[in-house]
């Protein structure tokens, strides 16, 4: 298998130069994950313009510097760092250069290890009340510095929430309480990181916000905690306002979409109804929707899945609606390279 360019040519126009205040959806299903596509967005925004120039040169591309804030609810920083490295992106270095910020929505979202949780007075009832004794400090892992050990080294420094617990991670999100207040807290955390990034931005610089699976937030809270599709959707709107362009990844598995879409709405669980309402509602707002799915005919040796790019229902602020809709196959190689090609081509 020949190695592939980090950004498949067919994809280039869809993942780079996203229009101002646009919303792009990446939808995935079980068996056709969206991680590779998110990495392509990262690469399009963060890579040095000329592949021959050594990576990390400070040459701005077209005078526009791009920054990325990645909020991930399903994947650890370590995962993104490793996978981005395969594309030639050094996320840790980019984070040092204030070009990239990672917000960890996995490690401590619903259950914070006691040592790093917020002070007891703020700690919500039932969500891991802090222990009275300090836990034993974990010795470093087998290969220190390689494996992510969110067991922070600064264990004793409690209450100092703003401390960067780990290199590369700008913020760890923690969900507490219920309803809008809890979403507001998350929004504040993310906005503060975005503002921090923006503080070093000049006019014309663009900030790309990528939120990986915000639908998890909805699924794991739900109407019984006062959070529904409308609330999550408004939460996204608020975050969108501070970013140049926003990319969301969402799950569109059949049980999550179709149970509620069919006429038999009575049978759908609130989880399914809210999820479908969120995803379809967002598709109505999006400028483009990139849909990933597995091959209709079953698995194949040289095809990982199908990518369909469609225009969403969103109002285009710019008059030129030049997004060409298309459907292509993609194949993820073992080395992480991705080939995107039309049907019948190889």
């Amino acid at each position, binding site marked *: 298998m020949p190695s592939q360019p980090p950004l498949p040519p067919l994809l280039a126009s869809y993942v780079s130069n996203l229009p101002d205040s646009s919303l792009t959806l990446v939808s995935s299903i079980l068996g056709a994950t969206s991680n590779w596509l998110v990495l392509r967005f990262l690469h399009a925004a963060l890579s040095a313009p000329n592949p021959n120039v050594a990576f990390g040169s400070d040459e701005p591309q077209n005078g526009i510097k791009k920054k990325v804030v990645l909020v991930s609810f399903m994947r650890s920083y370590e995962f993104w760092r490793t996978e981005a490295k395969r594309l030639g992106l050094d996320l840790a270095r980019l984070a040092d250069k204030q070009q990239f910020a990672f917000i960890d929505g996995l490690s401590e979202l619903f259950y914070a290890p006691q040592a790093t949780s917020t002070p007891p007075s703020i700690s919500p009832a039932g969500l891991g009340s802090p222990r009275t004794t300090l836990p034993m400090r974990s010795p470093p892992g087998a290969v220190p510095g390689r494996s992510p050990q969110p067991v922070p080294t600064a264990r004793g420094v409690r209450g100092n929430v703003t401390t960067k617990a780990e290199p590369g991670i700008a913020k760890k999100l923690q969900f507490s309480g219920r309803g809008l207040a809890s979403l507001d807290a998350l929004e504040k955390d993310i906005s503060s990181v975005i503002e921090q990034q923006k503080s070093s931005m000049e006019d014309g610089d663009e900030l790309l916000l990528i939120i990986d699976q915000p639908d998890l937030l909805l699924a794991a809270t739900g109407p019984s905690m006062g959070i529904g599709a409308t*609330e999550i959707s*408004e939460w996204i709107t608020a975050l969108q306002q501070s970013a140049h362009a926003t990319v969301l990844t969402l799950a569109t598995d*059949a049980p999550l979409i179709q149970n*509620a879409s069919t006429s038999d709405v009575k049978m759908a669980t*609130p989880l399914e109804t809210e999820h479908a*309402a969120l995803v*379809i509602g967002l*598709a109505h707002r999006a400028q483009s929707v990139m849909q990933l799915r597995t091959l209709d005919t079953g698995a194949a040796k040289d095809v990982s899945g199908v990518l369909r790019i469609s225009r969403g229902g969103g109002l285009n602020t710019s008059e030129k609606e030049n997004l060409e809709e298309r459907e292509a196959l993609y194949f993820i190689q073992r080395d992480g390279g991705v080939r995107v090609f039309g049907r019948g081509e190889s």
Partner: protein
Amino acid sequence: MAPINLSHRRTHNLLLISKLLSLRDTASPLTLVLDSLEQPATPLLKEYIRRAKLSKVHVTLVAFETLKQPDGVDAFVSTRRKSPADIVKEVSAVYQPVAASNSSRRRLILIDSINPLLNSKRVDPGFDLSSFLGSIIAPTSPSAKIDVSLVVTHHQDVPELPQQSPYSPSPISVLTYLATSIITLHSFSHVLAQKAARDRSLAPPVFGLEEEQEGILLGRLDRLAGTGQAEGIVIELEHRRKSGRGVLEWYLLPPASRYSPQHPKEIVTLLDDNVLYNPPMERDPSAGDEEPTSTFELGLTDRQRREREGVVLPYFDAQHNDGPGEGGRILYDMGEEDDFDEEEDEI
């Protein structure tokens, strides 16, 4: 349909849609636009805004999902974290300065999506959709008489949440009941594909979410096989007149790139008048007689026809009265083996 009938329908219904889209004579105070992912309402809303600009109507966008104020919108009301009452207040507030200057007596209020409001967890159970819409349309300050047209978009494919009160009608029923016009949008290429299938007595194809294929949200692709250059959106209009008589008509709105923003004339056409939807019948006068076509030449050349006419058929002469047969009589000579009985038989 008789041509007279069609032309009457054409004049009549085109005038109606023109009135509705240009907000003349407050033909429809509450228009409900039902859209789907397969045909979003954005092109239609843009058309509303374009026409409003041409006739200097004040445009307010109540944004439940729009992020930034689009071109041509005079007032942009963000609804984030606002209760329905606050929204109503703000909608009326943004018009106050305009009303004072008295420059415009007409006003268009667009709601880009009513679904978030209906699905919101924050809205208290006492929220009444009809009074909410009513208070938007009816001006709070009755001093200045203004004509308000409200256009509400509802995404049909966003699932409705279960009702809090199982006995009250669902919000969509309320909306369709209240609306004076209901516009349902379809993608032209899908309408064509479905018509083509129906013409062949096949099951009409479905698109997008209706495909029920895992991972598919949108089925719309630019080049849908077999529909050619189908652009534009199909408007299915149901208009309730004051008299109570309903009008049902299908129209076609061409894409915005086909005409200039200042285009004054009506650009909407009847769907039935579209060449792609209703291809004109092939009426070739030279091929008037309906001969079955086949790979064999069944006709005759002129020479063949002449020669055919020249052929004298056998016994042709016998049919003349003066011929040997005297007009076709049978001549028979009796033989001895014939048992001829003069009393019974006759020649």
